[in-house]
């Protein structure tokens, strides 16, 4: 087993500081959130993307500022990979001044420039199709990218959207973060067949990526994104990931075995092992940055919102 992991570790390609730094920034951001919750300093709920940080970092490297991104409940990484504004996001989650949506939307409902997240699973896919159709007409070459989880494939709206996207040739890139679980339910208990098969059934191009290497993921995604942009057609890119943390907070009922497997699938220890110096340097940088960021946001006054 350890042999196998080391194999994979060795397989990691050299990573740019910018990418690894961003992955670690998101990691520290999410960890900070869980700490704040534990200390009772955060209200409401949150879903961290621990273990999945590398996906949006890989994706965002391929996005144009004019592309739209649709995100879901597990959206901090999606946001931070695209917009390097952790202060604004933490302020949003904590309802403090400088919040990206004035504290109204919170963790699950963020709209900033062309990034939009919503908390109702599946709902944003048809919306993304509409946005993609507008982009195709007005700024051909731009796309709508929608992140969804494997569990979200239970929702009928996903299929209504895929059908229309393919029929009308909407430039839509669906990024599926397949972490093999939905809240507490293993994918085997909530998804029959496969995501590959489902996409194929709608005539939609699909590609599955198994790697945790941010470069590999980006490299495999690049031609897919190019197809979306140039051929005006939807693509489903499914990325195998592991959820290294709880669904929300303190609600992880997986067995020790499952937890170990998830931990082994996490990119974090692999990068730590593969690039020890670079990792240590960037990790310390990001740790310190996020710590300062948290301190900064914590002393801010409450956000203000004028009810319309």
């Amino acid at each position: 087993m350890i042999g196998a992991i080391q194999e994979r570790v060795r397989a990691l390609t050299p990573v740019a500081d910018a990418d690894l730094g961003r992955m670690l920034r998101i990691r520290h951001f999410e960890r900070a959130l869980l700490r704040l919750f534990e200390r009772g300093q955060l209200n409401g709920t949150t879903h961290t993307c621990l273990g999945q940080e590398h996906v949006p970092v890989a994706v965002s490297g391929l996005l144009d500022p004019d592309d739209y991104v649709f995100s879901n409940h597990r959206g901090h990484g999606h946001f931070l990979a695209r917009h390097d504004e952790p202060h604004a996001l933490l302020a949003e989650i904590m309802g403090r001044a400088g919040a990206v949506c004035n504290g109204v939307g919170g963790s699950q409902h963020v709209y900033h420039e062309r990034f939009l997240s919503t908390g109702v699973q599946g709902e944003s896919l048809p919306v993304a199709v509409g946005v993609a159709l507008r982009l195709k007409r007005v700024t051909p070459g731009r796309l709508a990218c929608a992140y969804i989880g494997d569990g979200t494939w239970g929702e009928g709206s996903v299929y209504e959207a895929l059908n229309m996207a393919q029929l009308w040739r909407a430039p839509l890139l669906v990024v599926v973060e397949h972490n093999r679980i939905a809240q507490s339910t293993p994918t085997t208990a909530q998804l029959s067949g496969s995501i590959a098969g489902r996409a194929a059934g709608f005539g939609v191009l699909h590609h599955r990526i198994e790697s945790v290497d941010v470069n590999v993921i980006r490299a495999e995604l690049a031609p897919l994104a190019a197809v979306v942009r140039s051929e005006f057609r939807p693509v489903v890119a499914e990325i195998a990931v592991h959820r290294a943390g709880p669904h929300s907070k303190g609600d992880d009922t997986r067995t020790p075995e499952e937890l170990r497997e998830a931990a082994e699938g996490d990119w974090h220890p692999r990068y730590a092992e593969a690039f020890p110096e670079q990792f240590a340097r960037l990790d310390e940088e990001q740790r310190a940055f996020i710590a300062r960021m948290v301190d900064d946001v914590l002393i801010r006054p409450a956000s203000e919102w004028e009810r319309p």
Partner: protein
Amino acid sequence: MRVAEHLNEALHALLDADPAVHVLGEDIVDPYGGAFKITKGLSTKHGSRVISTPLSEGGIVGVGAGLALAGDRAIVEIMFGDFAALAFDQLLNFASKSTTMYGRRVPIPLIVRCPTGGRRGYGPTHSQSLQKHFIGIPGLDLYELSPFHDAHALLATMFARQNPCVLFEDKVLYTRRICRDGVVDDLFRFELVGGWARVYADGDLPPDCVLIAPGGLTDRALEAMRDLLIDHEITCVLLVPERLYPLDPAPVMQVLRGAGTIVVAEDGSAGGTWGAEVSRLLHPELWASLSGPIRLVSAADSIIPTAAHLEREVLVQADTIRRAVLA
């Protein structure tokens, strides 16, 4: 001109005037032109901006919201308003919420058109008037087509507010004539005041009763008013708002203050009705002048049967309104 053609012309005008306008719906392109022919000719004239969709009511409302979010203006036809239930989540949890839940105003110029109502024998799942279920969703505005209001102006108003809107269109009203130049028929006249049509008998005497009703009730309200005037010498004024929710009674407050009796009529089934909402708004204002609570007329608390003789028993008829006024 019939209401259906008038609405069709309004859609043509809208598409002509603004290249950002898109129309989506099931079977709306030519030669079919929609189940009620409201979209006839649109696709021939405006091509790819008029799109026949798969059977996906939730999905197409989502697509419309996406277009609107990104800068277009979208009109989505739900073939039978009953199926708007399939788009309830998109309207409640996405389109309307997005206008405010991101902490700032986000425009979502989206109109969802719902052919509505019975009296055509289409049966329980194709005859409903679901207005009441959409009332009170923050950020969602409800309108209803009437023979008095100009459809083009109405659609323009809906887009101008930049909120998602649902437009209810009575299916029988489609076949009726529009009223113009203040004339309804030999007996009745009308004027428009701040989004309301005020319909009164020639001579404009102070009314004994004020009737409030969405546009789809017009035919039956007028018939009741005629009977009441001729048979009972009771003068009624009919008030028809273009926007059902949020309702702004200010422009007709003067008319209402004078009324001893107010009746609200609507097509939905009894219970949790639009009329109850109208009463909530008006009772505090009019408490002193009212002789009793506002009277509510609606369909029975029942599904809508298919057979004409059974359907008639359930739905609001002119006589239902007449009896409420006389009660």
